[in-house]
């Protein structure tokens, strides 16, 4: 989708939500759906569209973990760090992933392929430890399986 089309779509949503109470979060979530992340221009657009200071939009964007201020990788790789998974050794897996991908948790690989995220409980505790790549869920993951799994993408 072209940039203009993206902004038009966001504008329509803003127009819909403008007269609702508490529109900021839904608008920001929609913007992230459309653009993939919330850079300065998009946040400015929202600030002007909803007539709130940019400071407020940015304050909300940086408070919640799910809002990305930077462009994300092609694939989002989330390793669950919830208690059940942690107790089953998720930290070791995370270390291994950081090593294999040569990034720190939260960053995107140099080739733009993966963004490594340490995520909150995904709710699949029965399959701990759990890893998600985009919408694919991998359960009972072992450190050795990691290189194989990554190769699929």
């Amino acid at each position: 989708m072209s940039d203009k089309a993206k902004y038009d779509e966001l504008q329509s949503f803003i127009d819909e939500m403008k007269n609702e109470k508490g529109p900021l979060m839904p608008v920001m979530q929609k913007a992230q759906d459309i653009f993939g992340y919330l850079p300065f221009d998009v946040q400015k657009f929202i600030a002007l569209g909803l007539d709130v200071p940019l400071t407020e939009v940015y304050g909300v964007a940086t408070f919640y973990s799910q809002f990305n201020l930077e462009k994300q990788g092609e694939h989002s790789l989330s390793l669950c760090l919830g208690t059940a998974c942690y107790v089953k050794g998720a930290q070791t897996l995370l270390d291994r992933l950081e090593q294999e991908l040569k990034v720190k948790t939260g960053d995107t690989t140099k080739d733009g392929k993966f963004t490594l995220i340490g995520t909150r409980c995904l709710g699949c505790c029965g399959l701990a430890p759990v890893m998600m790549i985009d919408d694919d869920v991998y359960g009972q993951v072992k450190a050795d399986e990691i290189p194989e799994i990554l190769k699929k993408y």
Partner: protein
Amino acid sequence: MAKMVSLTIDGINVEVEEGTSVLKAAKDIGIMIPTLCYLNGVNSFGGCRICVVDAGAKSLLASCTLPAAEGMVIKTNTKEVQEARRMNMELILSNHDRSCLTCDRNGKCELQDTAFQMNVDEIRFDGKDTKHKLDLSSPAMVRDPNKCILCRRCVAACGRVQDIGVIGPTERGFRTIVEPAFKMSLGDVACINCGQCLQACPTGAITIVDDTKKVWDAIADPNKHVVVQTAPAVRAALGEEFGLPIGTCVTGKMATALKRLGFDRVFDTDFAADLTIMEEGTEFIGRLQNNGVLPMITSCSPGWIKFMEHNYHDFLPNMSSCKSPQQMMGSVIKNYYAPKMNIPRENIVSVSVMPCSAKKFEAGRPEFGDDVDVVITTQELGRMIRMAGIDFERLPDSDFDPLLGDSTGAAVIFGVTGGVMEAALRTVYEVLTKETLEQIEFESIRGMEGLKEATVKINDLDVKIAVAHGTANARKLLDSIRSGEKEYHFIEIMACPGGCINGGGQPLVDSEIKLKTNVVKQRAKALYSEDRGKALRKSHENPSVQQVYKDWLGEPGGHKSHEFLHTKYVERDLY
């Protein structure tokens, strides 16, 4: 009649209106619970957990956000409460830049005061201390996030009180930092330099830019002829820097102190205020009589000007083209006084003492050249006087220097909200009706109400006037004009709530005092008294001003006036 509730604090009964905070209820009976993030009328946040009290719940509650309720039993000073407060204080100090000795707030810092009050004698929990860069991008204020205690008083001042919101909390948890969006600096965003954040800050996290060194250098330079002008609001507050009661008017001592500091000439901005009324009054009458753009809006508040340029530049045609008194004075000093005294322009240093932090920005506007070389604020003048070892309280009174030192009562009240309008009306009325104005004081536009309006009958015309102070009220007023809901002829807008007496450069007042005293009202009283005490109370009666027209300018609104005393403003983006 509001419902009253009765509660017990430390065994003492007190009755307050329902909904009053326990903090205020305690104050009523002489118990000053220590606070840090609370600021009366600005911020009631409940974040520092210093003002916690025992209210019989399983955890201690912050008294600043606890509404008094019937039958409450509050204990403010148990051992448990004391220890809890002290530990929270230690935690704050463990994450604070503790280089107090070289800090601008050394000796006048609420964090120091509260730590002292709590008898903190060790910091048991030292650990990581977040490190941030200084923000030196603004000509008026310095931001040092390492001294920030995240009390959010500045956020409330900028966002809630002023309705501007260029700074706010970002990130989360331990990493939280209060700053402009996207890590921009103050100079990059639509900050209007009003300094309300500075006035709200309890520590050295936001301080006034210190330009005193430039002034000392100029005074020490034998080749320089250093001229100083002082704004109306300075005299109503300078005394506070030396422990004098709030609302003491110290005009005479101020003039003496300035002479002792070594200024070659001590003039009064009030003179230029009278001059401004001549020009602005003439301009207004011109618009009234020739179908000019109305409403006309005053232009002496540089915070308001920048606010207008960012947010309401559709009102550019409405702005008075008059410069502010500071700038008019600067222009008169460099273009009239200097040649008159045969002093080459490059040897004159024009210094102004202002209650206003935004004046530092104003003086640097390119269109104003070097008319005002340095702006120092009331706080900085206090520093200079202290540094020189002058015992301010014992100074005798003296007068401003002649030529540009005389002023009328109308000029003095410029420093209060409604004052410029009142001064203008005193002159415009007499010029248009050719009658003497009996009722000199316009009560309807005095006072701390955010938006004031009145109708003044001048000849056959019902002149509709409005006065707004604080940019939040400016927004309301201008929005009502944009929407067509309201119409006026003449409007006065001041960026700071209360007017210049509450400017960003005024002496800092401890939040405890702000809880007990209406500081702005007291300072306003000082100026209104001085007005009443003057023999001449209308700008057009000022003989020195008349002299300058005879000698140099010609007539108000004439060609020379426009060249030296008028200006234009610009459009600025919001982001």
